[in-house]
Structures are given as C-alpha cells and as structure tokens.
C-alpha cells in the first residue's frame, strides 16, 4: 500500500525538479556563454528502494545536473572588449574560491585598470591578472592584449581532458568538480567584437516542459484513483 504512494510521490518530485532545470535554462536563453543544464536522476527503482527507509522520499533521490558544454552561436556586438573563442577552450578567471572557467567573453576594464568580467572577476593572462592602465586596451585574434600598439599580456585559454567533470559555480562560471581534471593551455583563435550566446534550444526546453506537465498530471490522476480505491475499501469494509 505504501509503495504505490511512495512511487507517485517520487514521480511528482522528480517532475518538479525537472521543471526547475527547464525553467533555469529558459530564463537564461539569452545570457552570454550560458551552458544548458541537463537534469538526470538515478534509476527510479534504486531510489524507491532507498526511499522506503528514508524519512522523506526526496532525501533518497539523488539528482545531478550534467552541463551541456556545446558551444552557443556567435553574436556580433562590435564592442572592442567582447571576445569569443573559436573552437574548444575556456577563459580562466580569478575568484575568491580559486580559479573558475567560462566562455562568456564580455570583458570590461575596472577602476584599477584590470580586465574583468561584469561581475568583477579578473581575466587571467599568461602572467596572472591583466592590468591595462591608461589608454583603452584592444584584444587581437591571437589573444594578445594590446595597449597603444604594445603587447601587455596574452589571455590564458585552457581546455580540459575530462570536460564532464566541470560543474556550475556561482556567477555563471564553471569549476572542476574535485580537481581530478587538470586544465591544459591551448591557443585557439579569438574573434574580437563577437560574443558567444547561450546554447539553449527553446524548442527542446518547451517540449521537455510539456512532457513534464502531462507526466505530472498522470501522476495526479493515479493518486486520485488510488484515493478512490481507499475510500471505497473503507466504506465497503466498514459496512460489516
């Protein structure tokens, strides 16, 4: 008896989590450099077995998000400090929690002259932070940062042996999950004046959303049917 209810509850919880992921993807459909979250959960049977002993069904289910690292389309912005990477590779940023990575190339210069992201994290070059005091800097196709005709530094771009290890960190950045995958430096071509867009496909998210909503509705009907069965049983048996 409890198993049926458990199964329905698990199903509905999974649907809600799925919708959350779809919602996150849809909200970020035009965020530069955004990578789609792919929701996945462990096998339903396993969760059910574990769930019958857990206090709350949701504790037992392990949801994990894979990140879809396929590149987004390039948008031309004609802004001198917008850069996009052609091919594989990630920019490295310095954050208070260590190095983080991303593909969003909408950089700007802060008050001290450092090349930073809009959130304020410093873009890493071959020699650490890139500081361009004075005239506005330019970034060329090989990643060299030029100021008044002279090369100040070169933007550091890395790739990972095992990209599946990357997870999402705050502020739209990616970090390696447990440090098992090491970054390797590469030198791809950069496009100046272009920005990589989000890799979300609205159509795919829309279909996932419809599927989830109907699945949830089915679970609801199951629940109501089960409720009816219980109600009938109580009445009939109570007539004795």
């Amino acid at each position, binding site marked *: 008896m409890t198993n049926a209810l458990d199964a329905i509850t698990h199903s509905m919880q999974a649907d809600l989590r799925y*919708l959350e*992921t779809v*919602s996150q993807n849809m*909200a970020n459909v035009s965020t530069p450099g955004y990578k789609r979250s792919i929701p996945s959960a462990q096998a339903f049977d396993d969760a059910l077995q574990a769930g019958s002993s857990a206090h709350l069904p949701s504790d037992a289910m392990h949801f994990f998000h894979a990140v879809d690292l396929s590149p987004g389309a390039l948008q031309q912005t004609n802004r001198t400090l917008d850069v996009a990477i052609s091919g594989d590779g990630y920019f490295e940023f310095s954050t208070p929690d260590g190095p983080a990575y991303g593909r969003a190339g909408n950089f700007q210069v802060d008050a001290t002259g450092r090349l930073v992201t809009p959130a304020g994290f410093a873009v890493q070059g071959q020699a650490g932070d890139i500081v361009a005091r004075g005239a506005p800097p330019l970034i060329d196709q090989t990643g060299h940062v030029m100021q008044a005709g002279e090369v100040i530094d070169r933007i550091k771009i890395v790739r990972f042996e095992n990209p599946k290890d990357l997870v*999402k960190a*705050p502020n739209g950045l990616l970090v390696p999950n447990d440090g098992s995958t090491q970054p390797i430096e590469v030198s791809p071509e950069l496009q100046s004046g272009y920005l990589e867009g989000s890799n979300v496909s609205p159509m795919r998210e829309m279909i996932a959303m419809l599927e989830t909503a109907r699945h949830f509705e089915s679970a609801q009907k199951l629940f*109501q049917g089960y409720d009816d069965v219980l109600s009938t049983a109580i009445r009939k048996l109570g007539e004795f």
Partner: protein
Amino acid sequence: MNDSLYIAATGMQAQQTTIDTVAANLANVNTPGFKKGRVSFHEMIETGADLAATTSALPAASMGIAIDAVGKDFTPGQLQQTGRQLDLAISGDGFLEVTLADGSRAYSRGGTLQITKDSYLADAHGQVLKPAIYVPSNTQSIKITNDGKIFVQLPNQAQPTEMGQIELVQFQNPSGLRQVGSGTYQPTEDSGEAVYGKPGTLGLGTLVQGSIESSNVSLVDEMVTLMTAQRAYELSSKVAQTADELMSLTNNLRR
C-alpha cells in the same frame, strides 16, 4: 515552494530590463552625443555550504538569472560635419572638462558650444569649459585646432591670438561614469580617476571643429535585441504558466 515559478520570474524581469534599455536607446537614436545603454546578465546559482561533503555531485540550487549592471557603452559615435565654428566633437576617446553650476567638475563629449554673457566658452547647457577660455565680444572668428589650442581673430589684428589650451580627460573605465545631465558625466569609484592630457597624446582623441558626434545607437542591433528579448520574455512566461498549472494540480490532489 515552487522554485520554477521564481526562476521564471527572474527571467521575465531580466528581459523587461533589456526592453526598457532598448526603448531608451531607440528614443535617442538621433540625439547628438548619446551613449547607448547596455545590460549584462549572468546565471544565478546558489551553492549549499555542505556541497564539499558530497561525492556524488548534488547540484547547487538554480536561482535563475541576475543582472550584473546597466551600464553605458562609450563607443564613439560617427562624426557629422556641420561647418559651424562653435560645433566641437572629439574624434576618438576622451572627455572635455566642464564646471557645473554648483562648482563641481563634470565631463562631456563636446557638442554645440556657446559663449556665455561673461564671454567664456561653455557647452550647450551653459556649463563653462575648464580651463575657462575668454572670448572677447568683438571676436570675428574662433579657430580650435586638433590639439586643443584656441585662437580668436580680433579686428585690427593681422594674426589670430591664442586664448588658451584645452586638455582632454581619460578614465580607466568610462562605463563606470555616472550621468548627471544630458551628455554630462561625473566619475565614480568604478570609473577610476580623471587622467589629463593634450588631445592626440596618451591614446586620447583629437578635437574636430565644425563637427558633431552622433548617437552611437545602431538601429539594427536594437531591433534584433528587442525581438529576442520579447520572445525570451514569452518563453519564461510559458514556464510560469506551467508551474502554475502544476501547483493547481497539486492543490486538487484531494477532491
């Protein structure tokens, strides 16, 4: 309760801000010296404190989309020749320093200059240029050279007289400037300190007399942004509707 609803709400809010910025830009597509607004976003994720303890990657909680900043894009606009001697534009980077009515310093990109009743050179709003350039009332013509020297031609003089030298000002991060009036900006801690220099030196632009800088708004870019923002808003609203539907289904579990 239902996180999807709140995430969708952040999505709609973000697109609303984008559309507001586009509207302001389109309204000023012909305003001389106008600098277009630019919104930047990033994804919001909240990481739990116990994230490090888990080996299977329990996800950080998705929170939607956040707005980084609504800043101004200081890409120079195109110069239009007008031929009027009091029209001054800066070709390249840099700002002119002006003095506001309350005595504080502000910066502008030029425009149509005027001569105040005290005979000083001022910008279109009557804010006097710094250093103050005195223009005698019997001046026949004014010439401003590319490197900022101002000459006036007085009657009964064979050669024009030099009345002063304008310096241009540069900021580390112009997007951090705060707008205080139409085309007038003041520095903030995000923009950095003002760095002075002669026009044409240190990466500063040159002065061009007889030209006006037009708005740097690109009609095509703004229209495309408007269309995508509208559709993105619609997408998030569909998610909000679905979340609402699911909540309604949940409420009707027990008939």
